[in-house]
């Protein structure tokens, strides 16, 4: 039993509907609230199932035992009557009377009942005093109360009509059997009561279990809903379904946390990093409006401001692109493709620029390099790495772009001979808007590596920045060479 139904605090009656009202939803402001609780529903299902199977079992047993007794009695009576009618056909009335007498005389079980009467219902043979009034129909079973040596008993009888107006009553005293049957019925009913009690108790246990298992998850969810994003669902360590669920939820929370961080970073970036170029553009325009001496001067200022704005738009676009990639929606665009020409193309695209600066770009790749993913994004990621390598390489340096198959996936390495990234900056280099101390003089917004990292994550891979002494080796590992399961890679 659930608490509220038992506790009868008067003011609770107003606040909480009675059990019945809750169950039916009538007159309740929270209709069916109780049944909406999954734990109670599960427990109810458990109880009903258990009780039903208990009933089915009891009913079956009852029918098989008590029913069997009845059927046996009836079969005996029929066989008896059959025998008697044969005697009647063979020897007529005297034979029948004698048989009845004999049978009575040998009825050790002391349960046989016979009565043979003529058409006037006068008794001819048998052990009943008179023809019982109620027994009027043939082929029907009667329960007949009889008196046996002063004790009331019950007989089951059937009437047979013989030629010549004689009537025959054949029956059995079923008092003992009836007692047995009642005993059985009682036992079954008690068994049912026990089943119901156990079902209720079991239901309570089930509900408790259910609640306890869910409490863990719901506590965590509540804490998170209240703003504590650091909470995680505790694992029981059993590795069961609930643990799996908890792990999934934790993964989800992890991902939400990462996305939230991303959003926070972006808003910070908008607040700080974009403020600078916007301020610059605004200053330029205002300065031109106030101080421009000639139309040419004004135009020049406006054009520069437009260039500034274009820069801001480019940053925005890059940011949005990263966000788009991180959201993972681009996974639908994954295809299998050959990475070798992609590497060659990107290398060729930058080789010209590099050469202008006296830097050599070499592409090392097998003739074919099967990969799986978003070709355009991988292209862009490699371009960004190469862009950095060329940008930070000293004159006369050498940049190597190499691709290789690696354990079912591909590994792309872009190596330069520049200054590299100092160890304390390595971990932050992939953050949005991060630019190294020495990079301030070069153009850029610090989004290049962030995009590469996002692309790597999208493909379930990683971006590693190694010290190539001298220089930097950026290693992009994309572990998939062919489609994975539809769920996509986990990170």
């Amino acid at each position, binding site marked *: 039993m659930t608490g509220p139904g038992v506790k009868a605090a008067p003011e609770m009656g107003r606040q909480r509907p009675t059990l019945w009202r809750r169950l039916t939803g009538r007159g309740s402001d929270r209709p069916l609230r109780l049944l909406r609780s999954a734990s109670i529903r599960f427990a109810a299902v458990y109880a009903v199932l258990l009780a039903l199977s208990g009933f089915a079992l009891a009913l079956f047993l009852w029918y098989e035992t008590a029913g069997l007794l009845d059927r046996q009695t009836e079969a005996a009576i029929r066989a008896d009557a059959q025998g008697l009618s044969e005697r009647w056909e063979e020897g007529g009335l005297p034979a029948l009377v004698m048989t009845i007498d004999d049978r009575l005389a040998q009825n050790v079980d002391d349960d046989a009942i016979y009565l043979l009467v003529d058409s006037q219902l006068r008794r001819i043979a048998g052990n009943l005093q008179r023809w019982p009034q109620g027994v009027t129909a043939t082929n029907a079973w009667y329960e007949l109360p009889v008196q046996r040596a002063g004790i009331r008993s019950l007989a089951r009888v059937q009437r047979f009509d013989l030629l010549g107006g004689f009537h025959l009553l054949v029956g059995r005293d079923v008092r003992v059997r009836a007692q047995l049957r009642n005993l059985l019925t009682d036992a079954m009913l008690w068994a049912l009561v026990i089943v119901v009690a156990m079902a209720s108790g079991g239901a309570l246990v089930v509900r408790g279990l259910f609640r306890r298992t869910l409490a863990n998850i719901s506590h965590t969810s509540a804490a998170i809903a209240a703003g504590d994003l650091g909470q995680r669902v505790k694992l029981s360590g059993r590795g069961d379904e609930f643990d799996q669920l908890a792990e999934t939820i934790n993964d989800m929370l992890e991902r939400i946390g990462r996305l939230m961080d991303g959003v926070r970073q972006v808003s910070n970036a908008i607040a700080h990093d974009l403020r600078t170029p916007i301020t610059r553009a605004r200053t330029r325009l205002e300065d031109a409006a106030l101080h421009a001496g000639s139309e040419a001067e004004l135009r020049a200022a406006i*054009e520069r401001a437009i260039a500034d*704005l*274009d820069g801001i*738009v*480019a940053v925005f*676009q*890059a940011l*949005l*692109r990263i966000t*788009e990639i991180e959201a993972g*929606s*681009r996974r639908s*665009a994954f295809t299998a493709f050959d990475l070798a020409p992609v590497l060659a*193309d990107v290398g*060729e*695209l*930058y080789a*010209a*620029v590099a050469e*202008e600066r006296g830097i050599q770009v070499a592409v090392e790749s097998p003739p074919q390099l099967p990969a799986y993913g978003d070709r*355009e994004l991988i*292209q*862009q990621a490699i*371009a*960004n790495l190469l*862009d950095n390598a*060329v*940008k930070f390489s000293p004159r006369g340096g050498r940049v190597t772009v190499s691709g290789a198959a690696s354990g079912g996936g591909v590994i792309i390495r872009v190596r330069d001979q520049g200054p590299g990234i100092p160890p304390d900056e390595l971990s932050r280099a992939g953050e949005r808007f991060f630019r190294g101390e020495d990079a301030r003089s070069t*153009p*850029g917004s610090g989004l*290049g590596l962030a995009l590469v990292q996002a692309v790597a994550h999208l493909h379930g891979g990683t971006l590693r920045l190694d010290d190539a002494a001298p220089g930097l080796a950026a290693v992009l590992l994309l572990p998939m060479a062919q489609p994975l399961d539809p769920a996509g890679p986990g990170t």
Partner: protein
Amino acid sequence: MRILVVEDDKDVAGFVVRGLKEAGHLVEHADNGRDGLFMAASENFDAVILDRMLPGGIDGLRLLETLRGQKNTVPVLFLSALAEVDDRVRGLKAGGDDYLTKPFAFAELLARVEALARRGKGDAPVTRLLVADLELDLLSRQVRRAGQKIDLQPREFRLLEYLMRHAGQVVTRTMLLEGVWDYHFDPQTNVIDVHVSRLRQKVDKPFPSPLIHTIRNAGYMLRADPA
């Protein structure tokens, strides 16, 4: 050329219409999807500039799908603030010929629209491109200028081919990046400029008059007269 601009933002529409008129085009303007669809379906245009988000129940995608459903093949350039890769893909799938995201540079828009409108014209397969004394044979993959053979790298060849196919038109850096390298992102560094200047070294430097011209704030143009 007759160009239809379907754009609900008054400032943008006014700017675009004015710019196109200055460039010598006949321009019609519709500020909602319904009118835009009606005009595009009932009149002959050389190109349509189409915003994606439009008032009036019919957005740009629906408009274009309806138009294509009527077997209308007018070249359509999407001009949209929806900048995600998927948006672009959706626009092109719906039958768009080009996709430009806002904010945009007018020079870029003009160059793309003109390229689209011209492409819509003569589509006869050519095997030889000829501009002034510059000759490009697509079959033998040979380039000659003033009868003199010029050796080009495969990529340079494709770059020149692109410029020659769009001879007399402004070609922007992004158009080159998309058309020659099939890249749909901004490579930050001025890689295209370097490639074009290398091409110039081979095609223009040894000859008296240059063919490849830099158009300020826009891109490049290959044309015969040095006007």
